[in-house]
Protein backbone atom coordinates (compact mmCIF):
# COMPACT_ATOMS: atom_id res chain seq x y z
CA UNK A 1 0.00 0.00 0.00
CA UNK A 2 2.79 2.35 1.02
CA UNK A 3 4.74 1.42 -2.10
CA UNK A 4 1.71 2.06 -4.30
CA UNK A 5 1.34 5.51 -2.79
CA UNK A 6 5.01 6.22 -3.42
CA UNK A 7 4.87 5.12 -7.04
CA UNK A 8 1.74 7.20 -7.60
CA UNK A 9 3.52 10.20 -6.12
CA UNK A 10 6.46 9.54 -8.44
CA UNK A 11 4.14 9.33 -11.43
CA UNK A 12 2.72 12.72 -10.57
CA UNK A 13 6.21 14.18 -11.01
CA UNK A 14 7.05 12.09 -14.08
CA UNK A 15 4.11 13.15 -16.25
CA UNK A 16 5.47 11.54 -19.45
CA UNK A 17 5.58 8.14 -17.81
CA UNK A 18 2.12 8.69 -16.34
CA UNK A 19 0.61 9.58 -19.73
CA UNK A 20 2.36 6.66 -21.42
CA UNK A 21 1.27 4.15 -18.78
CA UNK A 22 -2.26 5.60 -18.86
CA UNK A 23 -2.55 4.95 -22.59
CA UNK A 24 -1.03 1.49 -22.05
CA UNK A 25 -3.68 0.62 -19.44
CA UNK A 26 -6.39 1.91 -21.77
CA UNK A 27 -5.13 -0.18 -24.70
CA UNK A 28 -4.79 -3.31 -22.55
CA UNK A 29 -8.34 -2.91 -21.24
CA UNK A 30 -9.59 -2.23 -24.77
CA UNK A 31 -7.96 -5.44 -26.03
CA UNK A 32 -9.13 -7.62 -23.12
CA UNK A 33 -12.72 -6.38 -23.21
CA UNK A 34 -12.64 -6.39 -27.01
CA UNK A 35 -11.63 -10.04 -27.14
CA UNK A 36 -14.69 -10.88 -25.01
CA UNK A 37 -16.97 -9.07 -27.45
CA UNK A 38 -15.60 -10.10 -30.86
CA UNK A 39 -14.99 -13.48 -32.43
CA UNK A 40 -11.25 -13.18 -33.27
CA UNK A 41 -11.43 -15.91 -35.92
CA UNK A 42 -14.30 -14.35 -37.92
CA UNK A 43 -14.86 -10.65 -37.24
CA UNK A 44 -11.51 -9.16 -38.36
CA UNK A 45 -11.58 -11.04 -41.68
CA UNK A 46 -13.44 -10.31 -44.94
CA UNK A 47 -17.15 -11.14 -45.27
CA UNK A 48 -17.74 -10.98 -41.51
CA UNK A 49 -20.39 -8.31 -42.00
CA UNK A 50 -21.98 -6.06 -44.61
CA UNK A 51 -19.54 -4.05 -46.75
CA UNK A 52 -18.80 -0.33 -46.22
CA UNK A 53 -21.17 0.33 -43.33
CA UNK A 54 -20.68 3.52 -41.37
CA UNK A 55 -20.45 3.20 -37.57
CA UNK A 56 -23.93 2.33 -36.35
CA UNK A 57 -25.58 0.85 -33.29
CA UNK A 58 -28.54 -0.78 -35.00
CA UNK A 59 -27.72 -2.18 -38.40
CA UNK A 60 -30.47 -3.85 -40.44
CA UNK A 61 -29.93 -5.48 -43.83
CA UNK A 62 -32.14 -4.04 -46.58
CA UNK A 63 -33.90 -7.38 -46.97
CA UNK A 64 -35.15 -7.26 -43.40
CA UNK A 65 -36.11 -3.70 -42.44
CA UNK A 66 -38.18 -4.92 -39.52
CA UNK A 67 -35.24 -6.27 -37.52
CA UNK A 68 -34.81 -2.97 -35.70
CA UNK A 69 -37.37 -4.15 -33.19
CA UNK A 70 -36.02 -7.66 -32.84
CA UNK A 71 -32.22 -7.84 -32.90
CA UNK A 72 -30.27 -5.16 -34.77
CA UNK A 73 -26.52 -5.70 -34.99
CA UNK A 74 -24.10 -3.05 -33.80
CA UNK A 75 -20.97 -2.09 -35.77
CA UNK A 76 -19.67 0.66 -33.53
CA UNK A 77 -16.52 1.20 -35.68
CA UNK A 78 -18.24 0.39 -38.98
CA UNK A 79 -17.07 -2.14 -41.56
CA UNK A 80 -14.68 -1.87 -44.51
CA UNK A 81 -15.27 -2.52 -48.20
CA UNK A 82 -14.57 -6.24 -47.81
CA UNK A 83 -16.91 -6.58 -44.85
CA UNK A 84 -14.35 -6.79 -42.03
CA UNK A 85 -15.84 -5.59 -38.75
CA UNK A 86 -13.49 -2.74 -37.87
CA UNK A 87 -14.01 -3.28 -34.15
CA UNK A 88 -12.61 -6.76 -34.67
CA UNK A 89 -9.76 -5.34 -36.74
CA UNK A 90 -9.00 -2.77 -34.05
CA UNK A 91 -8.91 -5.36 -31.26
CA UNK A 92 -7.12 -8.21 -33.03
CA UNK A 93 -4.92 -5.96 -35.19
CA UNK A 94 -3.56 -3.96 -32.26
CA UNK A 95 -2.60 -7.14 -30.42
CA UNK A 96 -1.00 -8.66 -33.55
CA UNK A 97 1.00 -5.49 -34.22
CA UNK A 98 2.19 -5.37 -30.61
CA UNK A 99 3.13 -9.07 -30.87
CA UNK A 100 5.27 -8.37 -33.94
CA UNK A 101 6.90 -5.43 -32.18
CA UNK A 102 7.58 -7.32 -28.95
CA UNK A 103 8.99 -10.34 -30.77
CA UNK A 104 11.32 -8.35 -33.01
CA UNK A 105 12.21 -5.96 -30.18
CA UNK A 106 13.13 -8.71 -27.70
CA UNK A 107 15.13 -10.75 -30.23
CA UNK A 108 16.84 -7.60 -31.52
CA UNK A 109 17.67 -6.32 -28.04
CA UNK A 110 18.96 -9.72 -26.94
CA UNK A 111 21.25 -10.18 -29.93
CA UNK A 112 22.27 -6.51 -30.00
CA UNK A 113 23.06 -6.48 -26.27
CA UNK A 114 25.15 -9.66 -26.67
CA UNK A 115 27.14 -8.07 -29.52
CA UNK A 116 27.51 -4.81 -27.60
CA UNK A 117 28.66 -6.48 -24.38
CA UNK A 118 31.14 -8.87 -25.99
CA UNK A 119 32.60 -6.41 -28.49
CA UNK A 120 33.20 -3.69 -25.91
CA UNK A 121 34.50 -6.16 -23.35
CA UNK A 122 36.90 -8.14 -25.52
CA UNK A 123 37.94 -5.35 -27.92
CA UNK A 124 40.52 -6.02 -30.59
CA UNK A 125 39.67 -7.37 -34.03
CA UNK A 126 36.31 -8.69 -32.95
CA UNK A 127 35.29 -5.23 -31.70
CA UNK A 128 36.46 -3.62 -34.91
CA UNK A 129 34.42 -5.96 -37.10
CA UNK A 130 31.29 -5.52 -34.97
CA UNK A 131 31.71 -1.74 -34.96
CA UNK A 132 32.08 -1.55 -38.74
CA UNK A 133 29.18 -3.92 -39.28
CA UNK A 134 26.94 -1.83 -37.03
CA UNK A 135 28.09 1.44 -38.65
CA UNK A 136 27.49 0.13 -42.16
CA UNK A 137 24.15 -1.42 -41.29
CA UNK A 138 22.96 1.73 -39.53
CA UNK A 139 23.65 3.77 -42.65
CA UNK A 140 21.47 1.56 -44.80
CA UNK A 141 17.82 2.50 -44.18
CA UNK A 142 16.24 -0.44 -42.36
CA UNK A 143 13.03 -0.24 -44.34
CA UNK A 144 14.91 -0.84 -47.60
CA UNK A 145 16.78 -3.87 -46.24
CA UNK A 146 13.45 -5.24 -45.10
CA UNK A 147 11.97 -4.56 -48.53
CA UNK A 148 14.71 -6.65 -50.12
CA UNK A 149 14.26 -9.48 -47.61
CA UNK A 150 10.47 -9.50 -47.66
CA UNK A 151 10.10 -9.13 -51.41
CA UNK A 152 12.47 -11.99 -52.10
CA UNK A 153 10.55 -14.17 -49.65
CA UNK A 154 7.31 -13.50 -51.50
CA UNK A 155 4.25 -12.12 -49.78
CA UNK A 156 2.40 -15.44 -49.73
CA UNK A 157 4.66 -16.83 -47.04
CA UNK A 158 4.64 -13.89 -44.63
CA UNK A 159 2.74 -14.52 -41.39
CA UNK A 160 2.65 -12.56 -38.15
CA UNK A 161 5.53 -14.65 -36.75
CA UNK A 162 7.43 -14.41 -40.03
CA UNK A 163 7.02 -10.66 -39.96
CA UNK A 164 8.45 -10.53 -36.43
CA UNK A 165 11.47 -12.57 -37.52
CA UNK A 166 12.06 -10.45 -40.64
CA UNK A 167 12.06 -7.26 -38.56
CA UNK A 168 14.28 -8.87 -35.91
CA UNK A 169 16.95 -9.33 -38.58
CA UNK A 170 17.68 -5.60 -38.46
CA UNK A 171 16.49 -4.73 -34.94
CA UNK A 172 19.86 -5.52 -33.31
CA UNK A 173 21.73 -2.55 -34.80
CA UNK A 174 20.58 0.20 -32.46
CA UNK A 175 20.89 -1.76 -29.18
CA UNK A 176 24.34 -3.04 -30.19
CA UNK A 177 25.66 0.50 -30.54
CA UNK A 178 24.05 1.90 -27.37
CA UNK A 179 25.05 -1.02 -25.14
CA UNK A 180 28.59 -1.05 -26.55
CA UNK A 181 29.19 2.58 -25.61
CA UNK A 182 27.76 2.01 -22.11
CA UNK A 183 29.94 -1.04 -21.53
CA UNK A 184 33.03 0.80 -22.79
CA UNK A 185 32.59 3.39 -20.05
CA UNK A 186 31.98 0.66 -17.49
CA UNK A 187 34.84 -1.65 -18.43
CA UNK A 188 37.48 0.23 -16.48
CA UNK A 189 35.46 0.67 -13.28
CA UNK A 190 37.10 -0.65 -10.10
CA UNK A 191 34.52 -3.38 -9.49
CA UNK A 192 35.17 -4.89 -12.92
CA UNK A 193 38.92 -4.80 -12.20
CA UNK A 194 38.27 -6.55 -8.86
CA UNK A 195 36.28 -9.24 -10.63
CA UNK A 196 39.09 -9.71 -13.15
CA UNK A 197 41.69 -9.94 -10.40
CA UNK A 198 39.53 -12.52 -8.68
CA UNK A 199 39.87 -14.60 -11.82
CA UNK A 200 36.28 -14.43 -13.03
CA UNK A 201 35.76 -15.41 -16.66
CA UNK A 202 34.76 -12.84 -19.28
CA UNK A 203 31.23 -14.11 -19.70
CA UNK A 204 30.46 -14.27 -16.00
CA UNK A 205 31.80 -10.74 -15.49
CA UNK A 206 29.52 -9.58 -18.29
CA UNK A 207 26.42 -11.35 -17.01
CA UNK A 208 26.91 -11.31 -13.23
CA UNK A 209 28.69 -8.00 -12.68
CA UNK A 210 27.94 -5.61 -15.53
CA UNK A 211 24.48 -6.69 -16.67
CA UNK A 212 22.66 -5.78 -13.41
CA UNK A 213 24.13 -2.28 -13.59
CA UNK A 214 22.85 -1.81 -17.10
CA UNK A 215 19.29 -3.00 -16.41
CA UNK A 216 17.74 0.50 -16.59
CA UNK A 217 19.41 1.01 -19.99
CA UNK A 218 18.21 -2.38 -21.16
CA UNK A 219 14.66 -1.45 -20.10
CA UNK A 220 14.77 1.86 -21.96
CA UNK A 221 16.46 0.04 -24.85
CA UNK A 222 13.61 -2.46 -25.03
CA UNK A 223 11.01 0.30 -25.38
CA UNK A 224 13.07 1.92 -28.15
CA UNK A 225 13.60 -1.41 -29.91
CA UNK A 226 9.87 -2.23 -29.78
CA UNK A 227 9.04 1.25 -31.11
CA UNK A 228 11.48 0.85 -33.99
CA UNK A 229 10.14 -2.64 -34.74
CA UNK A 230 6.51 -1.51 -34.84
CA UNK A 231 7.54 1.45 -36.99
CA UNK A 232 9.35 -0.84 -39.42
CA UNK A 233 6.62 -3.46 -39.51
CA UNK A 234 3.99 -0.84 -40.27
CA UNK A 235 6.07 0.75 -43.01
CA UNK A 236 6.75 -2.60 -44.61
CA UNK A 237 3.09 -3.59 -44.41
CA UNK A 238 1.95 -0.24 -45.83
CA UNK A 239 4.15 -0.93 -48.85
CA UNK A 240 2.29 -4.20 -49.37
CA UNK A 241 4.93 -6.52 -47.93
CA UNK A 242 3.13 -7.44 -44.72
CA UNK A 243 1.05 -10.47 -43.75
CA UNK A 244 -1.70 -9.45 -46.16
CA UNK A 245 -4.20 -12.01 -44.89
CA UNK A 246 -4.01 -10.84 -41.29
CA UNK A 247 -5.67 -7.66 -40.01
CA UNK A 248 -2.58 -6.03 -38.47
CA UNK A 249 -2.61 -2.24 -38.23
CA UNK A 250 -0.04 -1.85 -41.01
CA UNK A 251 -1.94 -4.13 -43.36
CA UNK A 252 -5.17 -2.25 -42.59
CA UNK A 253 -3.42 0.99 -43.56
CA UNK A 254 -2.22 -0.75 -46.74
CA UNK A 255 -5.84 -1.53 -47.65
CA UNK A 256 -6.89 2.03 -46.78
CA UNK A 257 -4.27 3.38 -49.21
CA UNK A 258 -4.73 0.68 -51.83
CA UNK A 259 -8.53 0.88 -51.95
CA UNK A 260 -8.53 4.69 -51.55
CA UNK A 261 -10.90 4.50 -48.60
CA UNK A 262 -10.91 8.26 -47.96
CA UNK A 263 -11.69 9.18 -51.56
CA UNK A 264 -14.69 6.86 -51.42
CA UNK A 265 -15.87 8.68 -48.31
CA UNK A 266 -15.33 5.70 -46.00
CA UNK A 267 -13.67 7.88 -43.35
CA UNK A 268 -14.14 5.41 -40.49
CA UNK A 269 -12.07 2.78 -42.34
CA UNK A 270 -9.03 5.08 -42.21
CA UNK A 271 -9.83 6.70 -38.89
CA UNK A 272 -9.78 3.45 -36.88
CA UNK A 273 -6.18 2.37 -37.69
CA UNK A 274 -4.89 5.95 -37.69
CA UNK A 275 -6.23 6.72 -34.21
CA UNK A 276 -4.88 3.44 -32.78
CA UNK A 277 -1.48 3.89 -34.46
CA UNK A 278 -1.26 7.42 -33.09
CA UNK A 279 -2.16 6.14 -29.59
CA UNK A 280 0.43 3.34 -29.76
CA UNK A 281 3.25 5.60 -30.90
CA UNK A 282 2.46 8.43 -28.49
CA UNK A 283 2.33 5.82 -25.69
CA UNK A 284 5.73 4.35 -26.61
CA UNK A 285 7.23 7.82 -26.99
CA UNK A 286 5.98 9.03 -23.60
CA UNK A 287 7.09 5.82 -21.85
CA UNK A 288 10.50 6.14 -23.48
CA UNK A 289 10.93 9.73 -22.25
CA UNK A 290 9.64 8.73 -18.83
CA UNK A 291 12.03 5.78 -18.55
CA UNK A 292 14.90 7.98 -19.68
CA UNK A 293 14.20 10.12 -16.64
CA UNK A 294 14.29 7.03 -14.42
CA UNK A 295 17.47 5.67 -16.03
CA UNK A 296 19.54 8.87 -16.15
CA UNK A 297 18.83 11.04 -13.12
CA UNK A 298 20.83 13.77 -14.84
CA UNK A 299 18.07 14.18 -17.42
CA UNK A 300 15.57 15.01 -14.67
CA UNK A 301 14.45 18.50 -15.39
CA UNK A 302 15.40 21.09 -12.84
CA UNK A 303 12.14 22.80 -12.18
Amino acid at each position, binding site marked *: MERLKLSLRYLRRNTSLAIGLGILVFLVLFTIIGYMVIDPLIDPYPLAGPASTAPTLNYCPRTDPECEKTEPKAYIFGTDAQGRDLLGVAVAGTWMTVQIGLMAGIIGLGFGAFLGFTSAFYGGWYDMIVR*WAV*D*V*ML*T*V*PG*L*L*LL*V*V*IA*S*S*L*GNQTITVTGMGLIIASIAWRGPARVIRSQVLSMRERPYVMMARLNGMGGMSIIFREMMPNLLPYLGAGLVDAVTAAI*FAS*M*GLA*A*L*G*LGPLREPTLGVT*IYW*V*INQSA*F*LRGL*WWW*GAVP*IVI*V*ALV*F*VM*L*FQISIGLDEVANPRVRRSQ
Partner: protein
Amino acid sequence: MRYSWSFVIKRFGLMLLIIWSGATLNFFIPKLTPRNPLREKLLQEASRGGYIPPGFEEMVQAYEAKFGLDRSVWQQYLSYVQDMLRGDLGFSISNYPKTVWELILEGLPWTIGLLITTTLAAFLIGSLLGALMAWPKASKLFRYVLPTLLIFGAVPAYVIALTLIYFIAFRLHLLPIGGGHSIGVLPSWNMTFILDILQHALLPALALVLAGSGGWAIGMRGMMVTIQGEDYMTFAEAKGLKNWRLFYRYGVRNALLPQVTGLALALSFIVSGSVLVELVMGYPGIGTLLARSINQLDYFMIYGIVFVIITGIAITMFIMDMIYPLLDPRISYESK
Protein backbone atom coordinates in the same frame (compact mmCIF):
# COMPACT_ATOMS: atom_id res chain seq x y z
CA MET B 1 44.36 22.54 -44.98
CA ARG B 2 41.94 21.28 -42.36
CA TYR B 3 41.90 17.66 -43.45
CA SER B 4 44.48 15.01 -42.98
CA TRP B 5 44.80 12.57 -45.84
CA SER B 6 44.38 9.56 -43.63
CA PHE B 7 41.00 10.82 -42.47
CA VAL B 8 39.77 11.51 -46.00
CA ILE B 9 40.91 8.09 -47.15
CA LYS B 10 39.29 6.42 -44.15
CA ARG B 11 35.95 8.15 -44.77
CA PHE B 12 36.17 7.36 -48.47
CA GLY B 13 36.85 3.73 -47.62
CA LEU B 14 33.79 3.64 -45.35
CA MET B 15 31.70 5.07 -48.19
CA LEU B 16 32.90 2.39 -50.60
CA LEU B 17 32.29 -0.27 -47.94
CA ILE B 18 28.70 0.89 -47.45
CA ILE B 19 28.01 0.89 -51.19
CA TRP B 20 29.62 -2.52 -51.59
CA SER B 21 27.63 -3.97 -48.66
CA GLY B 22 24.41 -2.61 -50.11
CA ALA B 23 25.13 -4.16 -53.50
CA THR B 24 26.20 -7.46 -51.97
CA LEU B 25 23.15 -7.75 -49.72
CA ASN B 26 21.02 -7.00 -52.77
CA PHE B 27 22.65 -9.87 -54.61
CA PHE B 28 22.78 -12.52 -51.91
CA ILE B 29 19.52 -12.07 -49.97
CA PRO B 30 17.35 -12.96 -53.01
CA LYS B 31 19.71 -15.86 -53.79
CA LEU B 32 19.10 -17.32 -50.33
CA THR B 33 15.37 -17.69 -50.93
CA PRO B 34 13.77 -20.43 -53.00
CA ARG B 35 12.08 -18.00 -55.39
CA ASN B 36 12.90 -17.81 -59.07
CA PRO B 37 11.64 -14.52 -60.54
CA LEU B 38 12.45 -15.56 -64.10
CA ARG B 39 10.42 -18.77 -63.88
CA GLU B 40 7.58 -16.92 -62.14
CA LYS B 41 7.45 -14.29 -64.85
CA LEU B 42 7.54 -16.88 -67.66
CA LEU B 43 4.91 -18.97 -65.91
CA GLN B 44 2.71 -15.92 -65.56
CA GLU B 45 3.07 -15.07 -69.26
CA ALA B 46 2.62 -18.69 -70.34
CA SER B 47 -0.50 -19.30 -68.30
CA ARG B 48 -2.18 -16.31 -69.92
CA GLY B 49 -2.75 -18.58 -72.88
CA GLY B 50 -4.75 -20.83 -70.60
CA TYR B 51 -2.34 -23.75 -70.49
CA ILE B 52 1.35 -24.33 -70.00
CA PRO B 53 2.91 -25.14 -73.37
CA PRO B 54 5.11 -28.22 -73.79
CA GLY B 55 8.77 -27.41 -73.61
CA PHE B 56 8.25 -24.86 -70.83
CA GLU B 57 11.18 -26.21 -68.83
CA GLU B 58 13.50 -25.89 -71.85
CA MET B 59 12.35 -22.32 -72.28
CA VAL B 60 13.13 -21.50 -68.64
CA GLN B 61 16.56 -23.06 -69.04
CA ALA B 62 17.25 -21.15 -72.25
CA TYR B 63 16.36 -17.88 -70.55
CA GLU B 64 18.46 -18.75 -67.51
CA ALA B 65 21.43 -19.39 -69.80
CA LYS B 66 20.77 -16.06 -71.50
CA PHE B 67 20.69 -14.18 -68.18
CA GLY B 68 23.79 -16.07 -67.05
CA LEU B 69 21.95 -17.81 -64.20
CA ASP B 70 23.44 -21.20 -65.09
CA ARG B 71 26.91 -20.14 -64.04
CA SER B 72 28.28 -20.58 -60.55
CA VAL B 73 27.18 -18.07 -57.91
CA TRP B 74 30.64 -16.51 -57.69
CA GLN B 75 30.87 -15.91 -61.43
CA GLN B 76 27.41 -14.36 -61.31
CA TYR B 77 28.48 -12.20 -58.39
CA LEU B 78 31.59 -10.98 -60.22
CA SER B 79 29.65 -9.96 -63.31
CA TYR B 80 27.00 -8.37 -61.07
CA VAL B 81 29.66 -6.23 -59.37
CA GLN B 82 31.05 -5.26 -62.80
CA ASP B 83 27.57 -4.19 -63.93
CA MET B 84 27.10 -2.14 -60.77
CA LEU B 85 30.47 -0.43 -61.26
CA ARG B 86 29.38 0.60 -64.73
CA GLY B 87 26.06 1.84 -63.31
CA ASP B 88 24.15 -0.77 -65.30
CA LEU B 89 21.14 -1.78 -63.20
CA GLY B 90 19.46 -3.85 -65.89
CA PHE B 91 16.01 -3.57 -67.43
CA SER B 92 12.68 -3.10 -65.71
CA ILE B 93 10.55 -6.23 -66.00
CA SER B 94 7.17 -4.53 -66.10
CA ASN B 95 8.13 -1.51 -68.26
CA TYR B 96 10.41 -3.60 -70.41
CA PRO B 97 12.16 -1.42 -72.97
CA LYS B 98 13.02 1.09 -70.26
CA THR B 99 16.05 0.49 -68.09
CA VAL B 100 15.91 0.66 -64.30
CA TRP B 101 18.26 3.64 -64.38
CA GLU B 102 15.99 5.62 -66.75
CA LEU B 103 12.95 5.11 -64.52
CA ILE B 104 14.91 6.08 -61.41
CA LEU B 105 16.17 9.25 -63.11
CA GLU B 106 12.55 10.20 -63.83
CA GLY B 107 11.61 9.97 -60.16
CA LEU B 108 14.78 11.32 -58.55
CA PRO B 109 14.25 15.08 -59.12
CA TRP B 110 10.77 14.93 -57.55
CA THR B 111 12.02 13.16 -54.43
CA ILE B 112 15.13 15.29 -53.98
CA GLY B 113 13.23 18.53 -54.54
CA LEU B 114 10.56 17.64 -52.02
CA LEU B 115 12.93 16.32 -49.40
CA ILE B 116 15.55 19.10 -49.52
CA THR B 117 12.81 21.70 -49.07
CA THR B 118 11.03 19.89 -46.25
CA THR B 119 14.21 18.94 -44.38
CA LEU B 120 15.37 22.57 -44.41
CA ALA B 121 11.90 23.89 -43.52
CA ALA B 122 11.52 21.44 -40.63
CA PHE B 123 15.01 22.42 -39.44
CA LEU B 124 14.31 26.17 -39.54
CA ILE B 125 10.80 26.00 -38.06
CA GLY B 126 11.76 23.47 -35.39
CA SER B 127 14.89 25.36 -34.34
CA LEU B 128 13.10 28.70 -34.19
CA LEU B 129 10.23 27.28 -32.14
CA GLY B 130 12.65 25.48 -29.85
CA ALA B 131 14.61 28.70 -29.28
CA LEU B 132 11.44 30.68 -28.56
CA MET B 133 10.26 28.02 -26.10
CA ALA B 134 13.41 28.43 -24.04
CA TRP B 135 13.36 32.24 -24.22
CA PRO B 136 11.86 33.65 -21.02
CA LYS B 137 10.63 36.85 -22.65
CA ALA B 138 8.71 35.05 -25.40
CA SER B 139 4.96 34.54 -25.26
CA LYS B 140 3.76 31.80 -22.92
CA LEU B 141 1.82 30.29 -25.83
CA PHE B 142 5.01 28.61 -27.05
CA ARG B 143 4.95 26.32 -24.00
CA TYR B 144 2.04 24.46 -25.60
CA VAL B 145 3.62 24.17 -29.04
CA LEU B 146 6.22 21.58 -28.12
CA PRO B 147 3.91 18.85 -26.78
CA THR B 148 1.76 19.17 -29.90
CA LEU B 149 4.76 19.00 -32.22
CA LEU B 150 6.17 16.05 -30.31
CA ILE B 151 2.95 14.10 -30.69
CA PHE B 152 3.10 14.73 -34.45
CA GLY B 153 6.74 13.69 -34.40
CA ALA B 154 5.97 10.37 -32.71
CA VAL B 155 3.47 9.33 -35.40
CA PRO B 156 4.81 8.16 -38.80
CA ALA B 157 4.71 10.90 -41.46
CA TYR B 158 2.58 8.85 -43.85
CA VAL B 159 -0.14 8.46 -41.22
CA ILE B 160 -0.18 12.27 -40.85
CA ALA B 161 -0.28 12.51 -44.65
CA LEU B 162 -3.34 10.23 -44.82
CA THR B 163 -5.16 12.37 -42.26
CA LEU B 164 -4.25 15.59 -44.08
CA ILE B 165 -5.52 14.17 -47.38
CA TYR B 166 -8.89 13.49 -45.86
CA PHE B 167 -9.39 16.83 -44.14
CA ILE B 168 -7.57 19.31 -46.40
CA ALA B 169 -7.90 17.76 -49.84
CA PHE B 170 -11.03 15.61 -49.70
CA ARG B 171 -13.26 17.55 -47.31
CA LEU B 172 -12.19 21.17 -47.77
CA HIS B 173 -10.90 20.90 -51.38
CA LEU B 174 -8.10 23.32 -50.47
CA LEU B 175 -5.31 21.38 -52.19
CA PRO B 176 -5.13 18.67 -54.86
CA ILE B 177 -5.55 15.13 -53.58
CA GLY B 178 -2.43 13.58 -55.07
CA GLY B 179 0.08 13.38 -57.88
CA GLY B 180 2.97 15.62 -58.79
CA HIS B 181 1.14 17.89 -61.24
CA SER B 182 -2.33 18.15 -62.75
CA ILE B 183 -3.20 15.46 -65.25
CA GLY B 184 -3.13 16.71 -68.84
CA VAL B 185 -0.79 19.60 -68.14
CA LEU B 186 2.36 19.39 -70.23
CA PRO B 187 5.54 19.97 -68.26
CA SER B 188 7.09 23.25 -69.31
CA TRP B 189 8.95 26.05 -67.63
CA ASN B 190 6.20 28.61 -67.28
CA MET B 191 4.65 30.20 -64.21
CA THR B 192 1.39 28.22 -64.21
CA PHE B 193 3.15 24.87 -64.33
CA ILE B 194 5.54 25.79 -61.53
CA LEU B 195 2.62 26.98 -59.40
CA ASP B 196 0.83 23.74 -60.20
CA ILE B 197 3.82 21.71 -59.00
CA LEU B 198 4.12 23.76 -55.82
CA GLN B 199 0.42 23.32 -55.10
CA HIS B 200 0.75 19.55 -55.41
CA ALA B 201 3.88 19.45 -53.28
CA LEU B 202 2.34 21.43 -50.42
CA LEU B 203 0.43 18.59 -48.78
CA PRO B 204 3.26 16.01 -48.67
CA ALA B 205 5.59 18.80 -47.56
CA LEU B 206 3.25 19.76 -44.73
CA ALA B 207 3.13 16.14 -43.51
CA LEU B 208 6.93 15.83 -43.59
CA VAL B 209 7.49 19.16 -41.82
CA LEU B 210 4.93 18.37 -39.10
CA ALA B 211 6.54 14.98 -38.50
CA GLY B 212 10.07 16.35 -38.59
CA SER B 213 10.18 19.65 -36.71
CA GLY B 214 9.53 18.29 -33.18
CA GLY B 215 12.96 16.66 -32.97
CA TRP B 216 14.73 19.89 -33.95
CA ALA B 217 12.71 21.86 -31.39
CA ILE B 218 13.80 19.58 -28.51
CA GLY B 219 17.49 19.89 -29.38
CA MET B 220 17.30 23.66 -29.81
CA ARG B 221 15.41 24.19 -26.59
CA GLY B 222 18.04 22.23 -24.66
CA MET B 223 20.89 24.26 -26.17
CA MET B 224 19.15 27.58 -25.55
CA VAL B 225 18.58 26.74 -21.88
CA THR B 226 22.30 25.96 -21.47
CA ILE B 227 23.39 29.10 -23.28
CA GLN B 228 21.26 31.38 -21.13
CA GLY B 229 23.43 30.49 -18.16
CA GLU B 230 26.61 31.61 -19.97
CA ASP B 231 28.47 34.69 -18.75
CA TYR B 232 28.49 36.40 -22.13
CA MET B 233 24.69 36.40 -22.11
CA THR B 234 24.58 38.15 -18.74
CA PHE B 235 27.22 40.60 -19.95
CA ALA B 236 25.36 41.34 -23.18
CA GLU B 237 22.17 41.89 -21.23
CA ALA B 238 23.98 44.21 -18.80
CA LYS B 239 25.24 46.24 -21.75
CA GLY B 240 21.58 46.95 -22.50
CA LEU B 241 21.50 45.33 -25.91
CA LYS B 242 18.16 45.13 -27.66
CA ASN B 243 16.10 42.05 -27.07
CA TRP B 244 16.07 40.70 -30.63
CA ARG B 245 19.82 41.17 -30.87
CA LEU B 246 20.32 39.17 -27.70
CA PHE B 247 18.02 36.47 -29.05
CA TYR B 248 19.44 36.10 -32.57
CA ARG B 249 23.08 37.16 -32.35
CA TYR B 250 23.93 35.83 -28.92
CA GLY B 251 21.43 33.04 -28.29
CA VAL B 252 20.33 31.42 -31.54
CA ARG B 253 23.65 31.79 -33.28
CA ASN B 254 25.54 29.87 -30.62
CA ALA B 255 22.84 27.30 -30.00
CA LEU B 256 22.56 26.48 -33.68
CA LEU B 257 25.94 24.81 -34.16
CA PRO B 258 25.13 21.37 -32.75
CA GLN B 259 21.89 21.50 -34.71
CA VAL B 260 23.84 21.88 -37.94
CA THR B 261 25.56 18.54 -37.31
CA GLY B 262 22.14 16.96 -37.13
CA LEU B 263 21.09 18.74 -40.31
CA ALA B 264 24.03 17.26 -42.16
CA LEU B 265 22.96 13.82 -41.03
CA ALA B 266 19.33 14.46 -41.94
CA LEU B 267 20.26 15.69 -45.40
CA SER B 268 21.88 12.37 -46.19
CA PHE B 269 18.44 10.78 -46.07
CA ILE B 270 16.97 13.01 -48.78
CA VAL B 271 16.52 10.08 -51.15
CA SER B 272 14.97 7.63 -48.74
CA GLY B 273 13.11 9.76 -46.21
CA SER B 274 9.73 10.03 -47.88
CA VAL B 275 9.09 6.64 -49.48
CA LEU B 276 5.78 6.07 -47.70
CA VAL B 277 4.58 9.68 -47.82
CA GLU B 278 5.08 9.64 -51.58
CA LEU B 279 3.17 6.38 -51.79
CA VAL B 280 0.23 7.80 -49.82
CA MET B 281 0.17 10.98 -51.92
CA GLY B 282 0.83 9.32 -55.26
CA TYR B 283 3.78 11.71 -55.61
CA PRO B 284 5.80 10.70 -58.69
CA GLY B 285 9.12 10.17 -56.88
CA ILE B 286 11.28 7.20 -55.96
CA GLY B 287 8.95 6.02 -53.19
CA THR B 288 5.94 5.60 -55.45
CA LEU B 289 8.17 3.86 -57.99
CA LEU B 290 9.33 1.45 -55.28
CA ALA B 291 5.79 0.70 -54.11
CA ARG B 292 4.62 0.11 -57.70
CA SER B 293 7.57 -2.18 -58.40
CA ILE B 294 6.74 -4.19 -55.27
CA ASN B 295 3.14 -4.59 -56.41
CA GLN B 296 4.24 -5.68 -59.89
CA LEU B 297 6.99 -7.98 -58.55
CA ASP B 298 9.53 -6.06 -60.63
CA TYR B 299 12.61 -7.40 -58.85
CA PHE B 300 15.32 -5.64 -60.87
CA MET B 301 13.52 -2.37 -60.23
CA ILE B 302 13.29 -3.03 -56.45
CA TYR B 303 16.96 -3.95 -56.12
CA GLY B 304 17.98 -1.08 -58.39
CA ILE B 305 16.12 1.48 -56.29
CA VAL B 306 17.51 0.09 -53.04
CA PHE B 307 21.03 0.22 -54.47
CA VAL B 308 20.66 3.79 -55.73
CA ILE B 309 19.29 5.01 -52.39
CA ILE B 310 22.09 3.33 -50.40
CA THR B 311 24.69 4.80 -52.75
CA GLY B 312 23.05 8.22 -52.42
CA ILE B 313 23.19 8.07 -48.63
CA ALA B 314 26.81 6.92 -48.60
CA ILE B 315 27.91 9.70 -50.96
CA THR B 316 25.99 12.50 -49.20
CA MET B 317 27.34 11.38 -45.82
CA PHE B 318 30.85 11.53 -47.21
CA ILE B 319 30.29 15.01 -48.66
CA MET B 320 28.71 16.25 -45.41
CA ASP B 321 31.67 14.99 -43.41
CA MET B 322 33.98 16.89 -45.75
CA ILE B 323 31.93 20.12 -45.56
CA TYR B 324 31.44 20.13 -41.81
CA PRO B 325 34.87 21.44 -40.76
CA LEU B 326 34.33 24.37 -43.12
CA LEU B 327 31.14 25.30 -41.22
CA ASP B 328 32.51 24.94 -37.73
CA PRO B 329 36.08 26.22 -37.45
CA ARG B 330 36.51 24.50 -34.08
CA ILE B 331 36.44 21.10 -35.74
CA SER B 332 39.42 19.91 -37.67
CA TYR B 333 40.45 16.52 -38.93
CA GLU B 334 44.15 17.22 -38.76
CA SER B 335 46.21 14.44 -37.33
CA LYS B 336 47.76 15.32 -34.02
